[in-house]
């Protein structure tokens, strides 16, 4: 098992290195530069912008920039953010926990909801509730993430103002509230972005789970359990579900990057100060080091997520542990 994990980690590092190289080159090939925002201001001359560019080393050939960047990366330095004017490491350290919190909540909720819905539909296959839930999950499955986020915000923050519009906490009152109120405020702000990501991901999981359940409910061991006179609930929970979970565990590895991708739009729309929000702004402002740093962190999260899924799969299916 450990050799397997080590092999996967090495593969993951290679993938991250490739992605970082591609990002590093592509963002520099894209039109514009980190100082394009000043183009509307006639007082900022081309000479001043050139001086800024030289200050950050962006005037050097791309291979030289890459070599320098690589040298700093291996020392744990992600460079300097031109849009936030502070070290990229600090910027990422602020944003990453926020994304992890959002993703953790969304992941837990979406798997819980998705598995429950899938099982419910499978055991009631062909009934009206199954068809209704099938349509609902298809609706969310086919919905663009940014559109759902916008609709959630408009519906539950604007037309029916139950939740805050944006941010992680109340911009004004949070520091002045007692601890319990601060926690409530955080939860209050978490609801809409987490629910958006949950609905998007749970729809996929529910459809997979339903199909997986339908595959196993006709297997012989389920028929045997039923013949032994076990209660239907026990059959589903102890026999069918356990085996039907294996394909869904694979989804965990896929859900991780999907959630990360979805978080880019969801975080942006809800101003959730996480990796997605950061990456989007970094791309728009051509903040080269921040874009590359975000991609590295995103890459690590995806590699770790898929590795975790493989390990879970191996743990759940003893056949995979055999040498």
């Amino acid at each position, binding site marked *: 098992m450990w050799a397997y994990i080590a092999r996967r980690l090495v593969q993951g590092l290679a993938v991250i290195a490739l992605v970082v190289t591609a990002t590093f080159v592509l963002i520099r090939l894209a039109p514009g530069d980190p100082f394009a925002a000043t183009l509307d201001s006639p*007082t900022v001359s081309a000479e*001043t912008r050139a001086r800024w560019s030289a200050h950050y080393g962006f005037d050097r050939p791309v291979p030289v920039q890459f070599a320098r960047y690589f040298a700093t990366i291996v020392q744990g330095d992600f460079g300097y953010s031109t849009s*936030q004017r502070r070290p990229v490491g600090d910027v990422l350290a602020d944003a990453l926990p926020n994304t992890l919190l959002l993703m953790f909540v969304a992941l837990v909720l979406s798997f819980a909801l998705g598995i429950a819905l899938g099982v419910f539909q499978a055991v009631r296959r062909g009934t009206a509730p199954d068809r209704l839930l099938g349509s609902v999950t298809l609706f969310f499955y086919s919905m663009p993430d940014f559109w759902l986020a916008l609709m959630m915000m408009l519906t539950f923050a*604007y037309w029916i103002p139950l939740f805050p519009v944006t941010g992680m906490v109340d*911009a004004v009152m949070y520091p002045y509230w007692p601890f319990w109120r601060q926690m409530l405020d955080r939860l209050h702000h978490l609801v809409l972005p987490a629910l958006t990501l949950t609905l998007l991901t749970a729809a996929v999981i529910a459809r997979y789970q339903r199909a997986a359940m339908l595959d196993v409910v006709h297997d012989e061991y389920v028929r045997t359990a039923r013949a032994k006179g076990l209660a239907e609930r026990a059959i589903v929970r102890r026999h069918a579900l356990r085996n039907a979970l294996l394909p869904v565990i694979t989804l965990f590895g896929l859900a991780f990057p999907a959630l990360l991708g979805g978080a880019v739009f969801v975080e942006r729309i809800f101003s959730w100060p996480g990796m997605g929000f950061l990456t989007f702004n970094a791309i728009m402002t051509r903040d080269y080091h921040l874009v590359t740093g975000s991609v590295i962190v995103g890459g690590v999260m995806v590699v770790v997520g898929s590795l975790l899924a493989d390990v879970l799969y191996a743990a759940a299916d003893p056949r995979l542990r055999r040498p």
Partner: protein
Amino acid sequence: MRISLASAALALLSLGCADRDSTTDGDAPTGGTLVIASAADAGTLLPPLIDDVSGKQVADQIFDRLAEIGAEVNTIGDRGFTPRLAQRWDWAADSLSIAFHLDADARWHDGRPVRASDVRFSHAVYRDPAVASPHAEVITNVDSISVRDSLTAVVWFARRTPEQFFEATHQLLIVPEHLLRDIARKDLATSAFARNPVGSGRFRFVRWTPGATIEIIADTANYRGRARLDRVIWSFAPDPTAAATKVFAGEADYFEALRREQIPEVEKNPLLRTLRYPQLAYTFVGFNTRNTLFANRELRRALVMAVDRQKLVRSVFDSLTSVATGPFIRAAAPAIPPIPQIAFDTVRAGATLDSLGWRDSNADGIRDRAGRPLTFSLLVPGTSAFRIRMAVLLQEELRRVGVDMKVEQLDINMMGDRQNTRRFDAIFGGWNLDPSPSGIRQTFTTVATKPGGFNYTHYSNPVFDALVDSAATTMNPEQSRGYYERAYGIIVQDAPVMFMYEFQGLAVAHRRLNITGIRPEAWWAGIADWSIAADQRIERDQIGLRVAPK
């Protein structure tokens, strides 16, 4: 020149009677929290390096200038300027220097007194190439600053110009030498001070949560008097729509860039109101005069003639803004008489195009000449809904006279790239103006056509250049105004650009705010005097001057 000296002397005399910007007297109450929704975070709060509006809004509350420009935004001489760090000032007889006498009570927020050496240091920082300040080039006329005594800073100018006082004051926020002198200049941008500044303004810095908020509170012992509000918070949103929604949802009190279609939302909400005010910005359709098509002055004039700009502006903005009539904003230049425009006349436009050989020979609705259709593309920033809408209407107007204009929507980076490299036929651009009218030297004169210059259209007319130069160097304000007026007339008739619309500030504000002192170039200039009546305060107004632990 003599008139300028005389006006300077008069201004000096009048200073004896001028009221210091009175703040704490009067009936307005103190207290309350103002939350400003903003669509972009600041980049830095170190004044010499600020190049974004959010940073400028915050820094203008925390730091002071020597003197503040007046409500009329006059940039010639010192008329209208009010004392800030400088209590008074004396012009030298030759006008090549001005001695600023600092207020002995002025203190940095850490308690240290503000001294003349701080003024000298600030200028040195702004001008140091290692700092690469975006403002360095607008203060090049300030040759040096010397310290006569601890409370007298003497600003020396390279040459006498009508705007030398403006250059020495408006462009220069004074920063504390004792906190910055030990930091290498090249490291100032990354210093802790840039994110945790100490100033001398009526608000002091509290905290900055990147991407979320910047918070400042009233400096209760300030030499200019306590700010009326306890606290101001900038709350950042990812885009203007989300920022406006914060105000609609009650999470913020003020947003400066409301869209026309959002007005009904404001009208439905009894707690909100709209505010309109002029802004120093305008848009234009610029023709690339290096393009053989647009090198022809008559063709450009015909295109301008073919467009009913009044109708376009009315269609997109209703009565919210007006047609731009030149490279200036009328509200900021009230003394400039109306500039004669190329009148809307499709018949004459058609006749001009006919006379230039552009006729619809194949009856496809588009004029052509020697087998080449009269077609061009217009670059439009995809982020500007107004410009996109207007471009579509413009396309239709031009189609009616047989001109095929294609609209190319680009993201801001792509557009900047095409603009810089002059790879465009026409561009829907806009300029944010400095209060000084001499800014057109950077945007429309021949010298600005060089690579990296801002004259993207490559417009070049020696008469226009000469008039602008004369206007910028003439000491007589009336004469200067006359030169500008003639220059504006020439550029309008040469039509290197089609002036489209002036920006009209449209803000949404909570009704409990008593808002004063909005200036065209800085609506935030009077925030320290905004107030909230005691009986209208809401939960966030009750925080007082408490500062939560960081």
